[in-house]
């Protein structure tokens, strides 16, 4: 269900029914605006239009610890605005249980209204039901939807908000909870980096020579995967990231594509989608460290050393290593990765810096309401 959706402007007049002091109503309107340089949306606006009060409800939920076991943590624990909604410096994330970490690096909550699949392995095809994973996974929030709903129903503020947004009396249920979270996350568009201003010819968008060189190199060496304005072709690819011996159950895309829900790691290893991961967007990449599905590289320079054909860490050649990362040199020898000089790396890094969108990272509408 993909719709090419245009421009939604919802003028919502909040009738002042705020007896609740806590609920300071900030004066803004949320409208989903299609950035001029972006691809078509995938978000289902017909099913779940983004409205200001739906957004506000979704935001309240996103920052609410009650979505987790013993009210321990909220979504924002691992999706922190100052780091483009990732987990500030963590490779893997501790969930609600102290000392128990998950197996993946937290992903940025940005531009999700344009994505075809969600999570590193594409476990979900709709933003709508993605939060089922963090809420119920033991290594994340380890709560049940039934408990969350019961907790929210005890709160009269939520009762009012859900009824206002979903126009029915008994509106607190898991579909509406998920729809509200979707509205909030769907509206989180990051499209005002220096790079965006550069391509749109706007003020603040002048590139230095080094940044221009970096852009050209990026387009030549990286944009066949990190393509377009989202900097991802949204394919699932084995990019040569080798197995992580401390995460022996990781199989990447194979787990999702296998018809067998009980398939063993050994069985999944034989599939040609083993260790494939979704090509990540590189927007705000400076802020989203550490890198890769397991956060194994702390610094971007290490990522470039990895892609490079000669500097450590090296590319691992599994049978399904993407062919775009296998080249032959003038002697007819196979080389893995993307040849880059140290100078070229400096230029690419300079370009990647231009993808930071400070307006997004400081946008108060997305911040925890006080």
């Amino acid at each position, binding site marked *: *269900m993909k719709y090419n959706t245009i421009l939604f402007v919802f003028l919502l007049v909040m009738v002042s029914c705020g007896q609740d002091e806590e609920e300071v109503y900030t004066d803004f309107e949320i409208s989903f605006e299609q950035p001029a340089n972006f691809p078509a949306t995938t978000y289902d606006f*017909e*099913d*779940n239009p983004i409205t200001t009060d739906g957004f506000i409800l979704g935001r309240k939920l996103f920052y609410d610890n009650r979505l987790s076991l013993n009210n321990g943590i909220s979504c924002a624990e691992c999706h922190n605005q100052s780091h483009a909604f990732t987990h500030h410096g963590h490779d893997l994330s501790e969930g609600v249980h102290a000392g128990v970490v998950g197996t993946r690096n937290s992903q940025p909550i940005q531009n999700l209204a344009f994505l075809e699949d969600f*999570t590193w392995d*594409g*476990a*979900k*095809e*709709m933003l*709508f*039901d993605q939060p*089922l*994973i963090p809420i*119920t*996974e*033991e290594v994340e929030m380890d709560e*049940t*939807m*039934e408990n969350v709903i019961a907790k929210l129903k005890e709160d009269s503020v939520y009762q009012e908000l859900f009824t206002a947004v979903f*126009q*029915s*009396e008994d509106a607190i*249920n*898991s*579909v*509406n909870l*998920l*729809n509200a979270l979707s509205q909030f996350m769907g509206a989180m568009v990051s499209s005002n980096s220096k790079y965006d201003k550069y391509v749109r010819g706007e003020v603040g968008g002048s590139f230095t020579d080094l940044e221009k060189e970096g852009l050209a190199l990026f387009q030549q060496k990286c944009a066949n995967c990190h393509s377009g304005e989202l900097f991802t072709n949204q394919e699932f690819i084995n990019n040569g990231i080798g197995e992580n011996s401390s995460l022996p159950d990781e199989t990447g895309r194979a*787990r*999702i*594509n*296998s*018809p*067998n*829900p*009980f398939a*063993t790691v050994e*069985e999944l290893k034989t599939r040609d989608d083993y260790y494939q991961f979704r090509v990540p967007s590189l927007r705000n990449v400076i802020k989203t460290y550490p890198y890769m599905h397991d956060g194994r590289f702390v610094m971007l320079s290490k990522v470039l050393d990895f892609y490079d054909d000669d500097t450590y860490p090296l590319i691992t050649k599994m049978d399904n290593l993407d062919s775009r990362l296998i080249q032959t040199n003038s002697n007819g020898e196979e080389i893995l990765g993307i040849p880059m000089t140290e100078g070229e790396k400096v230029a690419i890094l300079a370009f990647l810096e231009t993808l930071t969108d400070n307006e997004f990272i400081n946008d108060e509408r997305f911040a925890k309401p006080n």
Partner: protein
Amino acid sequence: MKNLRKWAFLALTTTALISCNNDDDSMGNENEGTHVSAVLKFEHSLGLGDEFTLTDSEDNQQNLELTKFKFIVSDVKVTTTNDEVVALSNNDAAELIDLANADETDVVRMYLTGIPEGSYKSISFGVGVSQEVASGSTENQIKLMELAEQDSEDMVWSWNPNSYIFSKIEATNLDVTTTAPTNLQIHVGNKGGVDGFRTVELIFPETLTIASKISPSIHTNVSIEKLFTPDAPGIEVAYDAIGAHGGTDDASINFSDNYANIFEIEHLHPNEAAINLEDVEMDNHAHDDEDSEDSHSH
């Protein structure tokens, strides 16, 4: 189009909210409740804790004890004797049939409401949730999701594009002597390109009359063993050929196909006294056992 309908709906519900504070239900019943149009009585061939025998892929007989059997019912449709198809909303008619909630005779009842008065010749329903429904309107999945989320999301694969688990059968292998004492554990859904959603059509042995004075019941046998040993033309499936133990897509497709084989109408009780949904729901909750044994296995 869909958008228009949605707004029309919103407008309607808003008006409804404003206009009607008095609680008369649009159903318009004489006795202040939701009339049950018909009852689907699923009488299972086995109860939880019963022993049964299945053949494994090496042709050995394995003795098993049934520990779980449940499936989601969606997309219920009834067909009149004039061939008009009446589709019931999943927000009313969807149900989770769970043997754990059966009575002493292994019967689980499902209550259908809102069927227009008239004469009917057949009923059909889906086992599981179709891809169309799962990726369609979220508003139409409010009940389905609630059903799936019971007992700690027992019918949810949160990490699968189609979140619903359609059916589960689990049994303990009692033959400790065999080399592979593999317990039975088959969970069906739409996963990795294999869609286990199946539609079951049941023809009534006589015309079923739906009327406000009665709540007729459709007594249906559920032959659990036929999932493995169906009547022809179904294909037999070794119990260990699916799931954890080197399962093949073919076996899971055959197994899913066999769902259509396990239901058979035994007879109708055409003139049973009218009942209200509110009464039976209260009754049902009294039976509900709270415990949800943790069966997390992935």
